[in-house]
């Protein structure tokens, strides 16, 4: 009997009456979307229940996938690590090949623009001591190389061949203390001799005190030394000082980055000065 006694269960009765009122009100009112409030409230409440259920299911699935079902992940991770390492190695190889191809392309471009006969060679070694700035090329006399041939790169003059064996050659870099090249200021045509300063700089000697030379002037080969073709870039004037004598003291920043050389061009065509010297010596011998 107590189950039917409302006075003993007034709370449930109150709740039932309130729900009845809410349903009664909802059935008469439309929401802003034109849907009856009863339907909107029912859908809204059920959608929240669905959202909660979905969240719980999703959380359980995440826990399973991320923490429990990891038996194959270790192997997969190892495989991926190996593949990544291999890919990195290949990437470095490709980058190296790309750099080399670009360098060769620049050489070929230079080769196409000059009338000189040249041959490309790769640097396979550098000097044994820092006192002598030399490099070794992978081509020698069998490839047509001989002593005093000019070595250039697209950015400028590198040096000259000082020793040519059958399959390799030694090149004296222009920055070597014993290296020298006939040079002139491109703007003012003031002439002099570029010599190596031992470090990564050059010195332009025998430029008259009255010559027009300023910092930033382009220095190019003059061609009078019989080795280097005329007009190739040597560098730019970085410092001009009066020495008190007949000549100025001029520093030149090389156009070539000697520390990053990989491929060079060797000029096979003798210069006009070399040819003249050859003809002169031949005539004198006669």
């Amino acid at each position: 009997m107590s189950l039917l006694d409302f006075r003993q269960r007034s709370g449930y009765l109150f709740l039932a009456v309130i729900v009845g009122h809410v349903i009664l009100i909802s059935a008469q009112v439309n929401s802003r979307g034109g849907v009856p409030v009863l339907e909107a409230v029912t859908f809204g409440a059920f959608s929240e229940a669905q959202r909660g259920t979905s969240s719980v299911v999703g959380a359980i699935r995440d826990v399973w996938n991320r923490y429990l079902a990891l038996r194959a992940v270790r192997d997969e991770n190892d495989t991926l690590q190996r593949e990544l390492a291999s890919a990195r190695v290949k990437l470095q190889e490709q980058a190296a090949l790309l750099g080399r191809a670009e360098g060769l392309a620049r050489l070929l471009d230079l080769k196409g623009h000059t009338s000189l006969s040249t041959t490309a060679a790769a640097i396979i070694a550098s000097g044994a001591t820092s006192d002598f700035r030399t490099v070794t090329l992978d081509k020698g006399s069998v490839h047509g190389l001989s002593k005093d041939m000019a070595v250039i790169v697209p950015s400028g003059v590198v040096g000259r061949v000082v020793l040519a064996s059958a399959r390799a050659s030694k090149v004296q870099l222009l920055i070597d203390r014993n290296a020298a090249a006939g040079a002139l200021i491109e703007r003012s045509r003031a002439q002099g001799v570029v010599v190596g300063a031992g470090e990564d700089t050059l010195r332009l000697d025998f430029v008259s005190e009255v010559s027009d030379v300023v910092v930033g002037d382009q220095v190019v080969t003059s061609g009078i030394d019989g080795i280097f073709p005329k007009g190739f870039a040597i560098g730019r004037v970085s410092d001009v000082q009066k020495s008190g004598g007949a000549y100025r003291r001029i520093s030149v920043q090389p156009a070539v980055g000697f520390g990053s050389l990989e491929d060079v061009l060797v000029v096979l065509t003798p210069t006009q000065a070399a040819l003249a010297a050859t003809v002169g010596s031949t005539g004198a011998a006669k």
Partner: protein
Amino acid sequence: MKVLWVVAGTALALALQTTAARFLAGGAIIVDFVLVVVIYAALASGPVTGLFAGTFAGFVQDTLSAGSGVIGIGGLAKTIVGFLTGLVGTQFIVAQGPSRFVTFFIGTLLHAAMFIGVSVLLGLRDLGRPYTAVLEQAVGNALVGVIAFQLAEFAPGAVERRRLNSRRPRRP
């Protein structure tokens, strides 16, 4: 018997509400006789009676004013007020004038809050901020409720005393 009293009280309250209430304060309805009956029934008979009284009275009141509102809002508000007032009446001693006054006062405020709140939530109409009117009605309901209790408690004794006085032999 209790149901009959509730129904009769509600009918009387509705009759007063629709005829006399608007003349009490120059047109402003400062007493809700139906709500007074609900609170009275709840205090006198408990939460279940208050619940049914609120539901019945509110439903009838809503039905009579169906053209201007939604049936159920007044019933919902009065149901809640009736039930909670009944609970208060069973949990606390509400037998003195001041405590009854406070109970009627708070019950009226709760009723207004429920009615206005639900209306605003449903976007039915903008009722503004009728703080003054609600306070006036709360005071009016409280006064009427306290008076009603006083009358109900003292009226039977007065009749009995009058009857006893009429039967007492007169001295020559």
